[in-house]
């Protein structure tokens, strides 16, 4: 399963947990959140990426929501993998949900998918990524440099080289456009 599959409309909703049963893990930066998410999902943990509460918000942030009762096991896995969390905190208020809507625009030869503030456009015949637009975090121009002009099958995935919420949003657009262009 894709590490970002929880956001896909065609995936079943993640079961809502009681707030009292959930905690969230805080990391140094978004890159570590993405690594931790990949690792924990690969190991079968039911976790999800969410927005942090205001009191710990520094800027471009994500946290991982997890079943609080599993704190020891999960923090040990992360510690052993070299991506220790800074804090594990019980959830006392609802965490922010990432956007889960895709906007699709068909230009004929080109297809554009928008996820949150990021847009990815592909030539439907050659499968070349022709443009990336939107976003405001500094990895966006970098991701565009690394991906534009490359085939969808050869371009690096944003989650591999991105570091911010905009990079994370671009990953969603990338997965959706792959789903539409490579499975048709």
């Amino acid at each position, binding site marked *: 399963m894709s590490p970002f599959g929880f956001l896909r409309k065609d995936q079943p909703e993640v079961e809502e947990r009681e707030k009292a049963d959930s905690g969230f893990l805080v990391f140094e*930066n978004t*890159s570590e959140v993405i690594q931790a998410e990949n690792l924990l999902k690969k190991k079968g943990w039911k976790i999800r990426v969410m*927005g942090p509460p*205001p009191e710990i*918000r*520094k*800027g*471009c*942030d994500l946290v991982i929501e997890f079943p609080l009762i599993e704190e020891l096991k999960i923090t040990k896995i992360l510690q052993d993998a070299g991506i220790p969390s800074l804090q594990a905190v019980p959830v006392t208020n609802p965490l*922010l*949900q*990432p*956007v*889960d*809507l895709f*906007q699709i*625009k068909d*230009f004929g*030869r*080109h297809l*554009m998918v*928008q996820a*949150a*503030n990021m*847009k990815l*456009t592909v*030539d439907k015949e050659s499968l070349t990524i*022709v*443009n*990336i*637009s*939107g*976003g*405001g*975090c*500094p*990895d*966006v*121009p*970098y*991701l*565009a*440099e690394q991906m*534009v002009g490359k085939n969808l099958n050869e371009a690096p995935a944003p989650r591999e*080289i*991105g*570091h*911010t*919420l*905009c*990079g*994370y*949003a671009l990953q969603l657009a990338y997965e959706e456009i792959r789903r539409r262009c490579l499975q048709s």
Partner: protein
Amino acid sequence: MLAVVGTVPDHEFPLLAGRVTLENGDICIQGRRVIVKRGTPALLASAIKVGETLSQEEPFGYLVGDIGRGEGSQQLYKYLAKHLSQTDFHIIAFHYIQPLIGWHNRILSVIEKMKKRPILVADAGYMYVAKMSGRSDAYDLFTPDVGELAFLADELAPHPFYTRGFLLHEENRVSDLITRAYVHRNASKYLLVKGRKDYVANKNGVQAIIDSPLEEAMEAIGGTGDTLTGIVAALIATGIDIREAAITASNVNRLAGVYAHPTPATQVREIIHHIPKALGEILSGNQEGEA
């Protein structure tokens, strides 16, 4: 004089401050050359094109390499906190930079103590952090697209990634989103909202709508928002008021797009090339979009 603060997508690029010039389509600062693809280099290249056309001086750039890890941005914030108070720019445009609330507030506090407060324009990551910090009203102009406007209108969202669904992509409700952004004090004094239609607004509502010419492909082209911010910032630097600059910039950006005969695969560099011709035409003719 216009100052531009932003990043370039090269981890090795050092922090540089100085005049920025355009040579064969690339921007140059302190002997370093950056190819213009999108982001802050596209903003600067557009501003330089406007300046050349209107015989204005080149912008001053504060640039650093950052590929999203934030180290470069932190270095830049630190440098600005130390040096900005010794400057007297007419306008500062803040652009692609890692949103860091603590540093943003420090920079704003430095600016608020300056003898002559510059006009403040924010786009991209700096617009995000201005809103995250609850200090949007300290800015004179934001240049969001419609999705980013929804983020400004959502009083709970700290980043466009968390904008609540009911506010997203309501292009036919732009004026409601604008009102909501002002009600919650999450808008700058003026907004230039870019999209199929561009809107110039302030706390009194929409002041102008610019909807032609329309090139559908522009939405897909990375950097067309950066060119708009560069054009409007350079126009404000000439001394004209923000409302007039925003309307003119919108017209110029749209017309430059038309001259490039764009497809969704067009690169923004091809559009920047046409800015002088579009600017000349708009300034010599009747402006469109007055409300």
